[in-house]
Every structure is written in structure tokens, then in C-alpha cells.
């Protein structure tokens, strides 16, 4: 399915969602797909305000996989929520294709850190997938096709009628990803999507993530704790540090594509890259 999808599936996604074709003249690639400039975020206000994000600047090009790493509590989830329009920024700007983000942008789908809480336990897998699609008022056949495609991509066609809690953690995580896929976002953002699944499933999900990028042509932003994972997945790794959070460094990952769990991880360059990131993280704050 993924292998046979259109060459520019993204344009197709666009037109399907908006009902119009995007003007081809848009200066694509001229500016980054996603652009974070001087972002700051505080929780609360007045005396009890807590500045979580100090000053973040980075950007993501179309079709890239970018990983964000950083210690727990640094504000990674906060950053993603800002990008998804769930929290307003306290200062700075976030732009998609040059347009400032205010409110949940239709281009973005967010896969939450806590998949078990983001899937509705009272809905079957299929109904969970349909939940965000209902208000798009698509024809029935289109809805069905989207669900099938997304489930097939994550290898869960057989689980459509089951409830999320009847599935293993890894499968639930894949359902959450499938829901995002069915929504056909241009930008897929995932918050520690592969925590607490076993090594084998994790490998599979990582490869799934890369396959999605290639198959659906999405731009993907992944938050992770796991440095090996970040290096394996990413075209670039954004390392966050210090409190309030700022970008310590953006590491360009130079590994051959397609990647392979065994051979890529065995490369000396891989070891070098992860040592580089590790050193940044381990550095005393």
C-alpha cells in the first residue's frame, strides 16, 4: 500500500482534505515547513508563573524526520503542545509554511505521549480512527478507505473491531499512529511514541515511522528519551537542555538511507553520532 502510493501523496492528502488543490506556485522549500523562532512558554501567570521554555529556535524542512531529545521535565511535551496549538506561546512565533500558528492547525496531527489515555476506551479501534474524521464530512467510502489504509500501514487490519484495551501496548501505540495517519496530516508530531514497548516492537515501530515518511511524504517530528532511537530515526536531532529550555545544539545525522536496525546501528558513524548527542546530554547543566 505504502509502496504503491502516489509520488506526491501529500498533495493528494491536501486536496482531499481541503477540497481544493494547493496552488503549485507556493514557494515550497523556499521557507521551512515548520519554523520555531524565539519560542518561549510559561505556565501560570504573575507571581506563580513558571518559565518552562526559555528561547527555542529551530526549523523542520518538508519531508524531514527531526528528533527532539532532552532530559525529563525539560519541556518537550510542552513544546509539542504549543506546536499543535493546544497552548499559546508566551513569546516568539511558530509558523507552518510561513503562516503563524494560532489554535490547532489542520496540517498537524499529534500522537500523544500517553497513548493509553489518548485512545478512547469506549470506542473500537476503527471508531477511534473515525473520531477526528467525522466532522470533515467525507463520503462513507472515503472514510472507510482511509481507515483501512491507515490500519494496513501499521499492520493492524485485523484489529479494527477490537477495543484499544484488548491490545498490547505496542499495538495501542500503533493505533494512535494510525489515527494520525487516517487524518492525513502534513506534519506528524509524536511524543515519545515508543516508550514502554519491548525492544522488538520498538524496532518495528521505528521502521514504521520511517516507512510513513517515505510512503505518505509526511514531515515528522519525534520526541524521544532514547538517544539511539533519535540517531537511528532522524535527519537532524535537536538537543534541548538547561532550564528554562533552550536548544543546546542541532546535530545533523549523516547516515545512509534506507536504515536497517542491525547494520545501521553497527556503523562506526552511528556510534560517533550517538556519542556526540550523549555527551551533550550528560554534560552537567
Amino acid at each position, binding site marked *: 500500500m505504502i509502496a504503491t502510493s502516489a509520488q506526491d501523496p501529500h498533495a493528494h492528502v491536501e486536496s482531499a482534505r481541503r477540497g481544493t488543490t494547493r496552488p503549485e506556485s507556493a514557494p515550497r522549500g523556499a521557507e521551512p515547513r515548520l519554523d520555531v523562532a524565539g519560542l518561549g512558554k510559561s505556565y501560570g501567570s504573575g507571581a506563580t508563573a513558571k518559565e518552562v521554555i526559555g528561547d527555542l529556535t529551530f526549523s523542520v524542512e518538508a519531508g524531514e524526520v527531526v528528533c527532539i531529545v532532552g532530559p525529563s521535565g525539560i519541556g518537550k511535551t510542552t513544546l509539542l503542545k504549543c506546536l499543535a496549538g493546544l497552548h499559546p506561546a508566551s513569546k516568539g512565533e511558530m509558523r507552518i509554511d510561513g503562516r503563524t500558528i494560532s489554535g490547532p492547525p489542520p496540517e498537524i496531527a499529534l500522537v500523544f505521549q500517553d497513548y493509553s489515555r489518548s485512545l*478512547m*476506551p*469506549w470506542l473500537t479501534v476503527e471508531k477511534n480512527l473515525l473520531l477526528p474524521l467525522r466532522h470533515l464530512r467525507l463520503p462513507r467510502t472515503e472514510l472507510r478507505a482511509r481507515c483501512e489504509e491507515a490500519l494496513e500501514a501499521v499492520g493492524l487490519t485485523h484489529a479494527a473491531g477490537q477495543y484499544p484495551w484488548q491490545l498490547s501496548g505496542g499495538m495501542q501505540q500503533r493505533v494512535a499512529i494510525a489515527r494520525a495517519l487516517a487524518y492525513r496530516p502534513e506534519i506528524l508530531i509524536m511524543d515519545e511514541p515508543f516508550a514502554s514497548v519491548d525492544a522488538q516492537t520498538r524496532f518495528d515501530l521505528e521502521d514504521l515511522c520511517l516507512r510513513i515518511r517515505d510512503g505518505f511524504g509526511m514531515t515528522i517530528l519525534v520526541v524521544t528519551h532514547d538517544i539511539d532511537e533519535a540517531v537511528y530515526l532522524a535527519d537532524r536531532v535537536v538537543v534541548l537542555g538547561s532550564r528554562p529550555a533552550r536548544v543546546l545544539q542541532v546535530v545533523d545525522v549523516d547516515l545512509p538511507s534506507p536504515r536497517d536496525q542491525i547494520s545501521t546501528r553497527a556503523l562506526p558513524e552511528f556510534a560517533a553520532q550517538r556519542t556526540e548527542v550523549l555527551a551533550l546530554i550528560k554534560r552537567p547543566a
Partner: protein
Amino acid sequence: MTTTLAPPRAAARASGAASALRRPGAGVLGAALVLVAWQAAALSGAVGSGLPTATATGAELARLTVLPGFWLDIAATVGIAMAGLAASTVIGVALGILIGSFEPFRAATLALFEFLKPIPPIVVLPLMVLVFGPTAEMAILLVVLGCALTITIQSTAGVHDTDPVALATARSYGLGRIETLLRITLPSALPFIGMAVRVSAPASLIIAVVAGLLGGAPGIGLSLYQAQAAGNYTTLYALVIVLGVLGLALQSASERIERRLLHWHPSHREGAL
């Protein structure tokens, strides 16, 4: 200080009436033991003339079951309890959604509900009897007074308890207000509502009986009063046993309904990983 009962999680499943009947053999033995003890106590006369024998009570029970009035009594009591419960649920859920979704309402009613919650409906029974007379309407109203508040408070808690991640998910996918209410908030609150209704079901029966016993409303409560006043102790005991059976039936019925509606909730899951 609001103590709302969170629905039990899977690890802490409540033992319901249904689970009590899991080992029928031992249960029958236990029931038989109790009956024998009762019979012996009644025959020995140790507790005075007020205690009829188990066998006499059984015979009285058999006699009652062929009287149409007996079934009318049961219908009246159950009808009062159910009508009151249904009304309470509608009122409670509507209020719960309203109060749970709007913070000012919640703030305004919190202290008031805290004050009213521990006051049992029996307290206002004398007033209700004076104003409405010893009628089914009075009894239903009493049931509503006794149950609606619990359901309101629980529904409010349920609405309030909606997982923020679920709400954020809905928002990030651009779901509207009404859609979020119907598809996210209400199902999330359902376990709380279900729990409140399950707790209220026996309460509604209790109040229906109290309304009859102390307030003269129709139903088994009134028959109970009349049996006691006339000194028909076998009838009295038989009716109490009927009430026990009714209570048990009501409990397992409400458990079953809850399980139906909430089969997806951790406390009811079968075959979860």
C-alpha cells in the same frame, strides 16, 4: 472535601451480588445453616413470641404469592423506586453536565451540595407527608430528593474527571464543543454516572419502603407497617424476606446494566491485556 467515589479499577473490583453467588454449594449450605438457626431460635421461644418460625414464614410467603394485592404492592414499590431513580438520573446527569462544564456553577454549588449531601431524605419525610399526603407521588418525590443529589455530584465529578489528554486529543483534531461533549466528556463521565446509579438503586428501594412504612405511601412499606400494627408477625417476616429478594434482584440488575454499558471500563473488562 468532596468525597466522590471514583469508579473501581480492574485491580479493585467490587464484589457484587453476582459474585456472591459464585460458589452455590457453599452458599446454600450457609443459607441452610441460617435458616436452621432461625427455626431453632423461634421454636425455643428464647426471643419471645414475636419471632415466627422459618417454616411458618415460608408458608405465609407461599400464601402471599397467590394474592393479587401482594403483586400490586411489589409493583407499587418497584414502580416508585424506578420512577424516582429514572427522574433522578435525568436531573442528575443534566445538572452534572451543566455544573461540571462551567466552573462558576461548580464553585457556586459546591458548598451548598456539601451541606445538603449528608442529609437523608427521611428527614423531610414528615414535611412531604403533610404537603403531599401518603401517596405514590410523595414517595417518588422523596426518592428523587434522596438520589438526585448523589447522581448530580457524581456526574459533576465524572465530567470534571475527563482525561485532559483525551480532551487535548479532541481539540488537536479540531472537534467542536458539542461533539467533544457527546463523544468524549459524556462517555468519560459514564463510569461515574453508572456507579452513582448503581449506588442509588438500592437507596431508591430503601426510600420507597420508608415512604410506605413511615409515610403511608402505597407498596410493601405500608403493608409492612400494617402487618406490624396488626401483629401479623409471619406476614411481617415474609415481607422482609420479599424485600431482601427485591434488593438482591435490583442490585444484580443494576450491575448487569452497568456492565453492559461500561463493558469497556477497566472495572468491567474481559479479555483486556
